[in-house]
C-alpha cells in the first residue's frame, strides 16, 4: 500500500482527491436540486415532506448522505491544506503582478470557505432542526377515489414516535399520513430577507467555484481530448455554474416573493 499513499500524497495525487470528491459533490448538487424541486409543488408540502421522510429513513440513502457529509468535510479541509502548501511555494510575492489567469481559478479556496460557512448555516437551518428539534406536524388525508389531498396542521404540541404515520381507511376510502412539516419550516425561514439574501449570494459562490472547478477536475484526472473537452467546459458553465445555482436560488426567492 506504500505506493498508494505515495501516489495520493504527491502533488498530482492530492489534486486527484480534490477532483474526485469535487465531482462527487457535483452529482450530489444535481440529486439534491431535483429532490428539492418538489418545494415548488402547490400541494401543501405533501410531496416534499414525504420525500424528506424517505431521504432520512431509506438505509441506502442514509449511508450515502453520511458519505456525502464526510466527503464535504474532506474536500474542504484538503482544499485548505493544499492552498496553504501552495502559498508556501511562493514566500515572497511580486510588487506588480498581472495575473494572467481567471479570477475564479484564483479564488477557489475563498469561495470554498464561503461555501463551508453556507453549509453550516444551511445544515443548522433545516437538517439539525428536522432531526433534533420539535417541528410542527401535518396531516394529509388523501381521497383514494379522486386523489384529492386535504392538508390539516396538527396541534402545536403533537408529536409521534414514527417519522411517518400512515393509515388507510378502506371503508371511508381515504389514506391518512402524518409527518413533520419541514415544508412549513422552509417557508417560514425564507420570510427572512437576510437569510434569503445569504442563500442567493451563496449560490453565486457555488457558481464561481464550479466555473473553474468542474472542468478543472477533468484536467486533473488527465481527461482531456480535443473532441470532448469543449463539451465538458460547456457542461460546467451552463449546467453547473448557471442552471443549477439558479435552480437553488429560485427556492428562497419563491418563498419570499410568492408565498
Amino acid at each position, binding site marked *: 500500500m506504500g*505506493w498508494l499513499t505515495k501516489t495520493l500524497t504527491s502533488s*498530482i495525487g492530492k489534486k*486527484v482527491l480534490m477532483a474526485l470528491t469535487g465531482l462527487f459533490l457535483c452529482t450530489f448538487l444535481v440529486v439534491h436540486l431535483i429532490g428539492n424541486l418538489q418545494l415548488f409543488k402547490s400541494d401543501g408540502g405533501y410531496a416534499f415532506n414525504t420525500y424528506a421522510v424517505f431521504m432520512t429513513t431509506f438505509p441506502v440513502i442514509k449511508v450515502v448522505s453520511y458519505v456525502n457529509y464526510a466527503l464535504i468535510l474532506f474536500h474542504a479541509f484538503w482544499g485548505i491544506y493544499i492552498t496553504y502548501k501552495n502559498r*508556501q511555494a*511562493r514566500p515572497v510575492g511580486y510588487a506588480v503582478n498581472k495575473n494572467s*489567469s481567471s479570477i475564479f481559478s484564483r479564488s477557489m479556496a475563498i469561495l470554498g470557505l464561503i461555501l463551508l460557512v453556507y453549509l453550516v448555516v444551511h445544515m443548522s437551518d433545516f437538517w439539525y432542526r428536522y432531526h433534533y428539534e420539535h417541528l410542527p406536524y401535518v396531516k394529509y388525508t388523501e381521497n383514494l377515489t379522486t386523489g384529492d389531498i386535504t392538508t390539516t396542521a396538527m396541534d402545536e404540541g403533537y408529536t409521534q414516535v414514527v417519522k411517518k404515520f400512515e393509515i388507510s381507511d378502506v371503508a371511508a376510502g381515504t389514506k391518512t399520513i402524518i409527518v413533520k412539516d419541514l415544508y412549513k419550516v422552509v417557508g417560514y425561514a425564507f420570510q427572512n430577507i437576510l437569510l434569503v439574501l445569504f442563500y442567493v449570494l451563496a449560490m453565486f459562490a457555488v457558481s464561481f467555484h464550479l466555473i473553474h472547478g468542474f472542468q478543472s477536475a477533468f484536467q486533473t484526472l*488527465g481527461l482531456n481530448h480535443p473532441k470532448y473537452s469543449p463539451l465538458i467546459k460547456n457542461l460546467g458553465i451552463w449546467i453547473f455554474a448557471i442552471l443549477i445555482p439558479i435552480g437553488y436560488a429560485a427556492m428562497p426567492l419563491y418563498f419570499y416573493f410568492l408565498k
Partner: protein
Amino acid sequence: MNITLKVWRQKNQNAKGALETYKVSDVSPDMSFLEMFDVLNERLVTEDIEPIAFDHDCREGICGTCSMYINGRPHGPLEGVTTCQLHMRSFKDGDTIVVEPWRASAFPVIKDLVVDRTAFDRIIASGGFVSVNTGNAQDANNLPIGKDQADKAFAAAACIGCGACVAACKNASAMLFVSAKVSQLALLPQGEPEREKRALNMVAQMDAEGFGACTNTGACAAECPKEISLDNIARLNREFLSASVANPEV
C-alpha cells in the same frame, strides 16, 4: 525614449532586497530589453554603483536563461517572446517599468534578478532523458512516427526550461515544465522503455524541490514564451496516474 526602471536589487541570497529606481535616457526603440540593461549597467559602473546582475546567454530566445518579471508578467508584455527578444518599442516614452526576479521558494534569488534554477536540472536528471547505447544512429525510417504524434512531441520539446511557468503560477507550480519534458518523450517510441519510471521520478523530484501543486489556473501556458499547451499537463497527469497504478514496484 526616456524610461524609469524600478529594479529588484538584492546583494545575495540571504540579504533583504528592495526595488531601486533608475532613470535611463536616450533609449533607442530598437534596443532589446537586455541591451537597455547593458547601457544602464555601463553607466552604473562609471558611477561606482554595482551593476545589476541578470541572467542571459543566447539572446536569441532559445536558451531560456533571461528571467525577468517585467511589469507583472514573466518575459514582459508580448505573447510567445522571451525577455531577450523583447524590444523597447513595446514600451512608450516616459514609461515606468518594474523588473523583478522569478519568485518561488524553489528558485531562491542569488543576486538581484538572478535566481537559482538548478531545481529544474535536478528534475531533468531524475528522468528527463532516454538511455541509449552509443554507436551509429539507426536509419530514421526504421521508426515510423505519425505526423500528428511527431508534431505534438515537437511542440512539447520547444520548452526552453526558462521557468516563466513557475514564475507566473500563483502556486509556483512546475507542472507545465515537467509536463513538457515528460510529454516530448512519452509521445515517441524512444521514450517508451523508461516511460513509467520517468513520470514517477520526475514528479517525485518536482515535489521534493518544493514547487506547488497545479490548480489548473492556466497562467503558465498564457505566459510561456514557447506557448507550451495545458494539454501536456493533462498528459502528465495521465502518465503519472497510470504509471502509479501499473508500475510493479510496491
